[in-house]
Each structure stands twice: as structure tokens, then as C-alpha cells.
């Protein structure tokens, strides 16, 4: 009786483990799940393999949509798209499968900076040009990729710093900073750029800086702590909109008015952030443009016609104040 029960149980457990294993495999193979044959540009279309980081934020969703909308069949492309679910091994696997399929171009947003050399070597040996979008890799050998297109995070932080320095730094102010995920390139660069920009202004002192992990909930929690610890905060600098929106909730809960008692400045310019900016709760946003699709399409067309492109292409990021946000909010895509 007991042994029978045990057997049933272990079989069931075995099935569950198997199922999980299969699930893991199939998500790992996500790279080629959506490919449509991909025999390397028959019928004149340029075949492109794109490996996306994941779908972790509204920004990323807009980025994905932009790329899928730009690299259409009508425009002469054959796009194989894969979602790596924030895992480097999935991305490497996807890139390998693109190489095996013999696509014409590979583009991807590296989830982390390091560890790409060997797979990029394989692409190079196969003669497939690689284009990096949004995020960089730290390979010393720059011949491994053709170009890197994306925003300049340091510049974004610097522009926020300049605006704060010019508009608010005319009298002594206390700034608290909500950093992005510790160690991520945007968090490091946006902090550096801001620090550089305010270095010359003695009126501005950054009194606290903690990580809010790029999420609303943590931005709010950390801001609540700041409000308890520091009674005289004038400005909040958040590395992305979501953390800034969380901070606004915390400021309201403390009985203060965001935009008046405490000014909030952020980076990204997603729709929720722009809405808050139009309402005056956020004071200034430097955009980090996710709409890389059209630029990527241009680059591939240029390369395909035998042209050359710059090794580093910086996307145009705009900056908005309240009036600017009200003007563009209606036809904001993301």
C-alpha cells in the first residue's frame, strides 16, 4: 500500500520535473520559435534576426513594437524576433540559431555588458554583421559589431543636471537621488552625468542616494524613508519615470505637494511619466527614446547597399517641461 502510494507519488513528481524541464527548454528555444523559415534572403527580402532583452517595462514594450513595425515585409525585411526573458543564455542561444539559419543581419539589445565575445566571433566568422541596440557590450574588439545605436545615458543625466542647476540651483537646494538597478549601465551613467553637471554649482547638495531598482514600488518605499530621514528635501532626481512616479505617491502621503514643495525630475518619458509632467507633478523629463525601429531599418538598408555607418549612433532624445508635455501627450505612442 505504502510502496504503491510512493510509486504513484514519485511518478507524479517525475512527470512534474519533466514538464518543468520541457518548459525550460522551450523557453530557451524561444529564439527560433517564431522564425518563419529564414533561408537567408530569398525573394530579395533582407532577413534580420533580433533578440530582445525581455518585456520588463513599458519602455521595452514600446521598443519592441517600434522594431516590429519598422522591419516589416512591406519595407523589404524578413524579421525573426525572439524574447530572451532577461536571460543571457537565451540571447546567446537565439543568436546561435540565427547564425545557423544564415540570416543577413543580427541585431540585439544585450541584457548585460560582458560575456559576448565568443558568440559574436561566431557571427563574425559566418560573415553576419551584428548591430547593437539600446545597450552596449564591453568587448575590446570593436570589429565584432558594426555599430551601436542607442541613447547616451551620461548625456541624459547631464541634461537633467544642467536643468536643475539653471532653474532650481539659483538658491541652496537639497537633492535626493533614486538610482536604477545597482551596477546597471543606465544607473551608473545617469548618476555620473548628473554629478558632472552639478559639480560647478555650490548651491546644490545631493544629501542622499539609494537604489529604487527602476520600479515604482521601490521608488515609493525609498522616498518614504527619505522623507522621514530628511525634513528639507527640495528636489528628487529619479533615474527613470517609474521610480519618480512612486516618489510622487510618497510625497503626497507625507502631506506635501509634488511639483511645488518638492520638485521631481526624471528620465525616460513614458506615457505615465509624461501625464504626470503635464499635470505638473513632475517638473522636467529627459526622454530616452525607445523608438529605435526606423533608425535600425535605415542602418540595415545602408549596409545592404554597401554603405558604411558610424560605429556609434546616438539617438535624438528630447527633453520636456510641463508645456512641452501637454503639447505632445495626445499623440504619444508609449
Amino acid at each position: 500500500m505504502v510502496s504503491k502510494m510512493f510509486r504513484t507519488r514519485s511518478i507524479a513528481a517525475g512527470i512534474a520535473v519533466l514538464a518543468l524541464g520541457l518548459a525550460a527548454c522551450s523557453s530557451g528555444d524561444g529564439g527560433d520559435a517564431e522564425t518563419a523559415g529564414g533561408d537567408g534572403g530569398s525573394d530579395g527580402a533582407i532577413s534580420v534576426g533580433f533578440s530582445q532583452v525581455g518585456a520588463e517595462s513599458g519602455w521595452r514594450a514600446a521598443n519592441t513594437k517600434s522594431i516590429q513595425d519598422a522591419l516589416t515585409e512591406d519595407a523589404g525585411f524578413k524579421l525573426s524576433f525572439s524574447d530572451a526573458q532577461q536571460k543571457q543564455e537565451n540571447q546567446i542561444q537565439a543568436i546561435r540559431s540565427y547564425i545557423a539559419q544564415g540570416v543577413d543581419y543580427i541585431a540585439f539589445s544585450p541584457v548585460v555588458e560582458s560575456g559576448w565575445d565568443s558568440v559574436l566571433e561566431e557571427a563574425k566568422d559566418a560573415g553576419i554583421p551584428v548591430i547593437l541596440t539600446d545597450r552596449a557590450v564591453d568587448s575590446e574588439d570593436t570589429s565584432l559589431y558594426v555599430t551601436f545605436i542607442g541613447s547616451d545615458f551620461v548625456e541624459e543625466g547631464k541634461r537633467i543636471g544642467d536643468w536643475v542647476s539653471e532653474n532650481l540651483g539659483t538658491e541652496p537646494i537639497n537633492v535626493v537621488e533614486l538610482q536604477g538597478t545597482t551596477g546597471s549601465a543606465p544607473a551608473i551613467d545617469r548618476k555620473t552625468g548628473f554629478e558632472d553637471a552639478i559639480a560647478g554649482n555650490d548651491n546644490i547638495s545631493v544629501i542622499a542616494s539609494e537604489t529604487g531598482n527602476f520600479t515604482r514600488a521601490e521608488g515609493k518605499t525609498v522616498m518614504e524613508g527619505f522623507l522621514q530621514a530628511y525634513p528639507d528635501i527640495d528636489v528628487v532626481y529619479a533615474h527613470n519615470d517609474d521610480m519618480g512616479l512612486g516618489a510622487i505617491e510618497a510625497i503626497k502621503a507625507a502631506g506635501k505637494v509634488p511639483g511645488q514643495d518638492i520638485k521631481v525630475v526624471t528620465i525616460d518619458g513614458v506615457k505615465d511619466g509624461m501625464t504626470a509632467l503635464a499635470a505638473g507633478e513632475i517638473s522636467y523629463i529627459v526622454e530616452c527614446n525607445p523608438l529605435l525601429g526606423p533608425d535600425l531599418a535605415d542602418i540595415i538598408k545602408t549596409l545592404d547597399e554597401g554603405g558604411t555607418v558610424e560605429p556609434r549612433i546616438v539617438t535624438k532624445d528630447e527633453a520636456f517641461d510641463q508645456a512641452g508635455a501637454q503639447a505632445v501627450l495626445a499623440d504619444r505612442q508609449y
Partner: protein
Amino acid sequence: MSAVGAVTRHRLFWPVVALAVLLLACVLKSNTFLDIAVRDGHLYGGPIDILRRSSVLLLVALGMTLVIATRGIDLSVGAVMAIAGAVALSQIAASDDPGSLAVVLSAIGSAVLVCLLIGVFNGFLVAVVGIQPIIATLVIMTAGRGIAMLITGGQITTVTSAPYKTIATGYWLGLPVAALIAGFFFLVTALITRRTALGVLIESVGINPVASRLAGVRARTIIWTVYILCAFFACVAGFIRSSDIMAADANNAGLFIELDAILAVVIGGTSLAGGKFSLVGTLVGVLVITTLTFSVTILGIPANAVSLFKALVVILVCLLQSPVVRRRLRRRRTAPVGTAPAPVEVPA
């Protein structure tokens, strides 16, 4: 001596000390930390923030305590939170009148239904099919976030709805609604498990499922019940978390909260081997973890040292609690008089 000894020997002595030390450190850094003021007609201050912040973890840890007491574990709580927020907020967002109480209540109702189904599923896998709890709940832990992503369409669903907002940021009688909700469920659970036989039955199942079944305890029903309860509490926690930011963030809502909840249960003195459980202990554990997170900001620990700081505090508390260390400490203090060894819980 014996009175002092009894206090220091209590298994919650060190967690409470840790809590006091953390609060003291915060007060030293920010003198007004423990002040409670009335602002906009409600109480405001550090302790109130901690109470409000604790509510999410308390609810999750409450369910986790019951599950762990039956010798199980539920890793799916974070994903259940994400699903709860996704179901509720996408319904509110899709309605014509997001501010109406009826819409909010029906959204909450359907989210509770979905979460209860997940609880039934988890319980079924563990109690009926007999899969190891850690594997059984792993299914929803990984798949659940995917479900939540599907519901929200991969976006962060944001809504404006006054009644829903009340759940996390509202105040009733000057106290945060979130803390009142968590407190209510805590008291009800404590009453039901300690004033009826349910608590003893749960413990007996955890200590020896076979023996308790032979003694007439319906082990299967009890195990099934605790997983459903755990999913329900996680669901309520999901409402509070999503109401806090008025957005359903399928990726990040309740991420890694299962680990914090398990930690709170362990700090509270409930053994992972099942059996005896302490809800008050879990409450203390939750307060320690929440205060620890809060103190990071107050004390201004540099962002890249936060994980290390938390780990050190947790390891210290766990070490001071462990029977071996405590016996060593006591022996040193009370000379070699024959001290009775601490009662060791023997997992059957």
C-alpha cells in the same frame, strides 16, 4: 536570575532585540523618526510607515506560516500577488467608470476567485497528487508571472480609481487601511487556529501526517485548506501592493517576497520541518524585516552595500537564535551547573 533567564531564553528574545536596535539606530540618525504627528487628519510618522509597509509581508507570511506548519512551502505567493493585481487592475482599467465602488468590488471579487483557484491547484498537487510542495508551487511561481503578463498585455497597467487607492493609501480612524486589513486577517487567523482545534490539527499534520491520518485527522483536507488560505492572503497582499502604486506591474509585484516571507517565518521560530508554529513570532519576524529595509534608507547605507548589510543582520539574528549558540552563551554565563538542554523540536 530565573525571570531574566526566562526572558532571554525566549525564542523571540533576539528578534525583538534586533528590532529595538534597528529602531534605536534610526532614531540616532534621525531624531524625529519615532514621532507620530497628525497630518491631513491621519497619523504620520516612522512607526506608521513601518506598520503600513509591513502589511503586505505580514499577509504573505501569515499564509506561509500555516503552510510551513504542515511541512510544506509555497513559492508561488509572489506570482499570485502579481496575478491579483493584474486581474483587478485590468478590469478596472477596462470599465467605463473606474471610480465606482461597484466596479472595484467586482474586480476584487474576480481576482479573489482566480487566486482561490490557484490555491486549489497548489493544494491539489500537494495533497492529492502528492508532489513535493517545493516543486508543486514552483509551477505557479514560474508560470504565474507569465499569466499576469498575458493579462496585462506586457504593459504596466495604470489606473486612477479612488476606492481602489484607499486599500493601500487610505486611512480609517487615523490609521492606515492597509495595516488594518493585515491586522484583521492576522487576528482572525490567530483566533481560529488558537481558539479552535484547527491549530493543533495543522501542527499534528506537520509533525506526522501518517500518524495524524490514522488518528482520524483529515490530513488531506487540512493541507489543501492551508494552500488555499495562503493564496488568498497573497491575493489580498497583491491588492495592497498594486493599490500602493495604482499600477499592476506583472514583472516586479511581489518579486522575491516568498524568500522574505520564509525568512520572517523562520525568524519567528517556526521550524521549516513543520509542526509547531507561532503567528506572533511571524509578526515579529515581519516587523524585523520591514524595519531592516526601512532603516537602509534612513541610515543612508550606500546602494551597493545594502544586500551585505541586510545579510549581516539576518545572519546575526539567526545565529543568536540557534540552539547551539544559545546553549554555548548560556553555559558561559551560568557556570557549569547542570542546565537543562533547550527543548529541541524533533521532526518526526
